[in-house]
């Protein structure tokens, strides 16, 4: 097309379409990003409601509110919805909004596929959530769905669960392809790989992880599908299969998956801490290499989830050493963030509060991870509340706080208004206290011997469970405040400048706030 035609086209497409078709048919990265974020928050509330049911049942010993069958459905659905419905789509939403703005691209590289990868998600979750209303109930075998509990002994709805996983897997893979295509092809002139913002780097690596492991997940659920419906015996020992094979394949997906849920948060925090420290990020290059190292190591540590299944001694040692190694690059990242804050000029607006809490609490989750890596000790920790405490520490103040920090950081750019800082700080402090009250005592419960995934427990665990439930209710209720803050910010508030944070760096701050519907039609020059 000629340059004249280009200009002409832009004059006529400066705004979004009207009505519902704007959202159904949009190929605009900002609209799709918004839809991902709204969807993920809705799933966060749904998964959170299930967590409230779990904590209500565990408030006291004895069965009060739900029966064990339903309790197991709640733990399973809570895990699945939070992992696949809340955390992953939230990061894809952030990627959609921010990657083009950060690299100076007009949109994602594959906009129509972008639309499809979003709209697959509500379909997948409609199927998944509908299983709650089916005869025999929803999946009840834990989010790790170990065979044969999920195959021979699974409820009839398992097949629907498998299709839901397939659909969300397709969505994730397409999202990842889009991210890679965008980053590798659409960077502004002059932006070399080692000049890319860290959020772009972490997402690039995350996208490769997604492409590598989502097909493995699709494979393992397909094998389940065959075992359940077509008489194969992949995971059935009585037919010559192997239940442990399931765990190897699942965790080959599952371990990189946990980094998929945290690496983009690493990236976002690496923007926020320098911005509010008014000082450049310490060790940019080592940050990039550390993320790469973590991603590579994530492929060779999967059996640390399986220390008690009877892996031979040599395997056990290999996976223990490899897992311990992950502490090195992760430590480098934490040291770099602290060194960035050191001798800066710090202020503590909501994004910074969430980012600093992220560094502290994620590190605590990292410490318990290091403890879990010690294979002999893992025999005591495994499948107890210590593990529950560990992964909630890396996921709630890790992934979720990372998402909140990002949301507050970029809300002025998205809406053109400043959010209410007092309310946001209240949101932070209530979340911080509630979350620690909910999850810290779980370390004690696990060490004292409480297994995970039980609807009722022995009396010596009663006190800490009550504390934990109170913290969980507090954390859960507080999240409604976030909804209020965002609605308030969308509707109005103090006008946001193009660059509302004086220490912030990057191309996204060179466009006006709110970001126009189309940005960087002409690529900027990066020196």
């Amino acid at each position, binding site marked *: 097309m000629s340059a004249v035609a280009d200009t002409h086209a832009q004059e006529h497409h400066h705004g979004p379409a009207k009505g519902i078709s704007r959202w159904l048919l949009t190929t605009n990265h900002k609209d799709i990003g918004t839809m991902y974020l709204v969807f993920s928050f809705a799933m966060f509330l749904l998964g959170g409601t299930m967590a409230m049911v779990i904590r209500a049942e565990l408030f006291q010993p*004895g069965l009060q509110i739900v029966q064990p069958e339903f309790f197991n459905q709640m733990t399973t659905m809570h895990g699945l919805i939070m992992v696949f419905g809340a955390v992953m789509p939230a990061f894809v939403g952030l990627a959609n909004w921010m990657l083009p703005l950060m690299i100076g691209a007009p949109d994602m590289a594959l906009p129509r596929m972008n639309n499809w990868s979003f709209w697959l998600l509500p379909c997948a979750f409609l199927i998944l959530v509908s299983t709650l209303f089916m005869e025999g109930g929803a999946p009840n075998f834990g989010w790790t769905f170990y065979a044969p509990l999920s195959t021979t*002994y699974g409820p009839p709805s398992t097949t629907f669960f498998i299709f839901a996983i397939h659909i969300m897997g397709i969505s994730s893979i397409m999202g990842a392809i889009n991210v890679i295509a965008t980053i590798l092809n659409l960077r502004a002139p002059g932006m070399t790989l080692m000049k890319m913002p860290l959020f772009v780097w972490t997402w690039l690596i995350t996208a490769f992880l997604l492409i590598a492991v989502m097909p493995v997940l699709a494979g393992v659920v397909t094998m389940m599908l065959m075992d359940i419906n077509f008489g194969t015996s992949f995971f059935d020992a009585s037919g010559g299969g192997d239940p442990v094979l399931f765990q190897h394949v699942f965790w080959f997906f599952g371990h990189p998956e946990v980094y998929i849920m945290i690496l983009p948060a690493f990236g976002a925090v690496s923007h926020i801490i320098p911005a509010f420290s008014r000082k450049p990020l310490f060790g940019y290059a080592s940050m990039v290499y550390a993320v790469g190292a973590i991603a590579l190591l994530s492929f060779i540590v999967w059996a640390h989830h399986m220390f008690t299944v009877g892996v031979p001694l040599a395997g056990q040692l290999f996976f223990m050493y490899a897992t311990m190694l992950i502490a090195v690059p992760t430590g480098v990242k934490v040291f770099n963030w602290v060194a960035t804050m050191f001798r800066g000029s710090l202020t503590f607006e909501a994004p910074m509060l969430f980012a600093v809490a992220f560094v502290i609490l994620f590190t605590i989750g990292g410490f318990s991870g290091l403890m879990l890596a010690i294979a002999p000790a893992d025999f005591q920790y495994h499948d107890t509340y210590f593990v529950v405490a560990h992964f909630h520490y890396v996921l709630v103040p890790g992934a979720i706080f990372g998402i909140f920090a990002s949301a507050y950081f970029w809300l002025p750019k998205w809406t053109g208004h400043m959010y209410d800082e007092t309310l946001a700080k209240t949101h932070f402090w209530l979340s911080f206290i509630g979350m620690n009250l909910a999850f810290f005592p779980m370390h004690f419960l696990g060490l004292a011997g409480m297994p995970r995934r039980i609807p009722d427990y022995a009396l010596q665990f009663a006190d800490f469970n009550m504390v934990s439930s109170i913290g969980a209710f507090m954390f859960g209720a507080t999240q409604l405040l976030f909804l209020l803050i965002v609605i308030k910010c969308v509707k109005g508030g103090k006008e946001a400048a193009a660059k509302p944070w004086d220490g912030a760096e990057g191309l996204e701050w060179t466009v006006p706030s709110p970001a126009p519907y189309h940005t960087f039609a002409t690529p900027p020059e990066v020196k």
Partner: protein
Amino acid sequence: MRVHAKRAGALLGGLVFPTWSMADWTMNMTPGVTGTSNDIFSLHMTILWICVVIGVVVFGVMFWSIFAHRKSQGHKPANFHENTMVEILWTIIPFVILVVMAIPATATLVDMYDTTESEVDIKVTGYQWKWQYEYVDQDFGYFSNLATPRDQIENRQDKGENYLLEVDNPLIVPVGKKVRLLLTANDVIHSWWVPEFGVKKDAIPGFINEAWFRVDEPGTYRGQCTELCGKDHGFMPIVVEAVPEEKFNVWLAEQKAAAEKERELTQKDWTMDELMARGEKAYQTACAACHQPDGSGAPPAFPALKGSPIATGDMTAHIDIVVNGKAGTAMQAFGNQLSEVDLAAVITYERNAWGNNTGEMVTPKEILDYKNQQ
């Protein structure tokens, strides 16, 4: 040394303040009663302290920045953004710490995997939702079920001291002997865990895992299943009683004699009332978890027996499903789990309880004949 001091302290505390020592606010792992669990405890404490020290240093620097380097304090930002020396140092130091940590961990692991030269071998089989213990070479075994009454779980009765951690038949082991466990499962994956032994191993259908322990102090030790295994995963505890060797031998002889007597009961002539009485008891232990005490079941996974075509229809089909189970479902084959007497009693009970008034009964001898025909 430290470990022993703590154990002595715990023992003293237990004697002086019996309620206080059941500390509801237990925060740490306990050292346990075996060499393995003591090794694990000291690994746990070492890595915990390493983490605490690293945490204090890193967070110390961070908090110092938070307090001293605030904009509101008028602090002007520095502009440094790399320092190769520092970056190399904080890569190498953690690596060295990890190597130091890996050495004792490796030694402990090697020891845990050494299941040779065992003196007592016990096969442990996980079932939904109970454990079976079989003394290998002794031709003797039994099931171990949750003993906590339903009324306590559903809050109709005060909860007992060992709520959910008590069983009808605990595993009995002799003290001072190396006990090797051979773990497997009948249906789904379970995991056998007694924290005080430092033993946790998955029981996997079709596979046999090994674990071992040697307890020196007689006592009762409690644990739970730690792999999600379905509805009643939280209700299949483990209780191990370690007893002196002479006592163990006496117990073993008694149990074998009792088992022999039980087998003789098959030849006895049973009346309907006797079978119904025994059947109700056996049903509550073996069947009620799924089919419910009142036979109402929990469809579709666990069908109702009350008025069901199987429990009120053809007798042979009923015997077949109880003895052989139903492939592809949660219905287990009870032929090897229950004695002929219990099988006959349960089937008779199911055909006559809850309004299933067929009036039919089956005798243990008939069950034995049925099994022999197969």
